[in-house]
């Protein structure tokens, strides 16, 4: 199917449980059997124990802004059509070594989300995850906590 946005494959065998979690409103991270820590992005093998056996653990979905940017045109048409948007890097409270790329948004009052004005973003401010489906893929984004 031709899509306008760049999207992952939510049916990829390794990452499917992550996207299924997002669809269920739950942020999940990968933890290998017997391991104390979680990983993001997912891996096929635990780099310490060398097991491939793993589970997907629901986490709090809370974090803080590590950094952010405001891309200006030229961009791909689908993204240029969004108008001025931000991209944030969020350090997760459940393990601050883990960071996720997303957008800082606010509810538009109509069930959707709009970008927050980047001029108001502060590194270190607390955020929590929300899920916003784009062409059927429930992308995690972030709102102010």
């Amino acid at each position, binding site marked *: 199917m031709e899509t306008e946005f*760049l999207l*992952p494959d939510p049916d990829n065998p390794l990452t499917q449980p992550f996207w299924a979690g997002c669809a269920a409103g739950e942020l999940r991270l990968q933890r290998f059997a017997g391991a104390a820590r979680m990983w993001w992005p997912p891996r096929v093998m635990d780099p310490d124990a060398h097991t491939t056996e793993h589970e997907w653990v629901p986490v709090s979905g809370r974090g803080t802004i590590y950094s952010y940017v405001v*891309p*200006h045109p030229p961009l791909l048409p689908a993204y240029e059509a969004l108008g001025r948007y931000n991209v944030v890097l969020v350090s997760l409270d459940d393990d601050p070594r883990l960071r996720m790329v997303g957008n800082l948004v606010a509810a538009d009052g109509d069930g959707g989300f709009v970008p927050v004005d980047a001029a108001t973003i502060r590194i270190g401010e607390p955020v929590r995850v929300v899920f916003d489906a784009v062409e059927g893929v429930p992308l995690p984004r972030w709102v102010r906590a």
Partner: protein
Amino acid sequence: MLKDRVAIAGIGQTEFAKGHPESELTLACRAIVAALDDAGIPAREVDGLSSFTMEPNREVEVARNIGTGDVTFFSQIGYGGGAGCGTVLHAAMAVATGQCRVAVAWRARKRADKASRMWAQSPRVLTDDFQWSRPWGLLRPVDEIAMIARRYFEEFGATREQLANVALAFRKHANNNPAAMMHGRPLTLEQYLEARWISEPLCLYDNCLETDGALAVVLVAADRAPDLPHRPVYVHAGAQGFSADNYHMMINYFGPDPLEGPSYAAARQLWRGADFGPADVKVAQIYDAFSPLIPLSLEGYGFCERGEGLAFTEGGALEAPNGRLPTNTGGGGMSEAYVHGFNLIVEGVRQLRGTSTNQVPDADTCFITSGEGVPTSALLLRN
């Protein structure tokens, strides 16, 4: 260890332009033939070829068109702009171990055409690491490095005025280099601060140029070099590097410290193979697809401590001839030409021959890097 066992005997380049009428293959052949002529070595003697995986011209095409002998060593290095110094390193290792006797390393690229923008050709369904960044609109390399730059500013209290030192120094060098695309185009701090954003906090002048062109170098064993026309420039040490915590192609966000890129790993190997250290380097050529790569590389390779890279640039430190560490003395990717950093290697050779248009007096050691933020490589040259 390489330790000066191999020399760069020839350098060559095409003109740098936007919309060059000739093909990338023609540009590659012209640059390589120019480098061979410069070295005084016939093409039939070439038996080693080294370039980038992103190089559009295959070894067999180059060999057929320039008329090499039997080619007994050929190598391609991956990871985009991280490859440049690695191509010279592989060629030097091959000469040092007898796998070939005359090696050519080169890069040809028509990057000025908008159709060549890699980010605009992304597949719609992402399967690699970019699936964790691009869906949210972090689309281009400049967006990826801007994320690091914002954090750097915040964590170390650095400023855009400090970052401007990079663009201004390189432009000053280009203004003295007739081959540079930005020759005759001065740049002021006011122009920098008022320039349009590309990806906040990075503006137009924090970005490299878009260039069509090609460059090449010729390597031979050190014992042959004194018989050739130019002052020999020796490959003193070289290294490639990344760590298991580094992610590929700029999105180095997922390791313990996003401000510690692959250069740290390359640096440890580079200095291990060298008889001198950062304090002995007279002139530097540091990969500058984006200006923040300069402070990050200065830190990674030990020219200053973590977080001190932008403070290092103060007081004209990067400017030839008398700065603390004259850097990108041909103008670099930001003001001479962006040919995936290969012009940095050729300019490094010029400095050690004493023929740069921004010559550093008594330059006898040169430090050169390839792209930081991707699996990378670096060289130390001496004369």
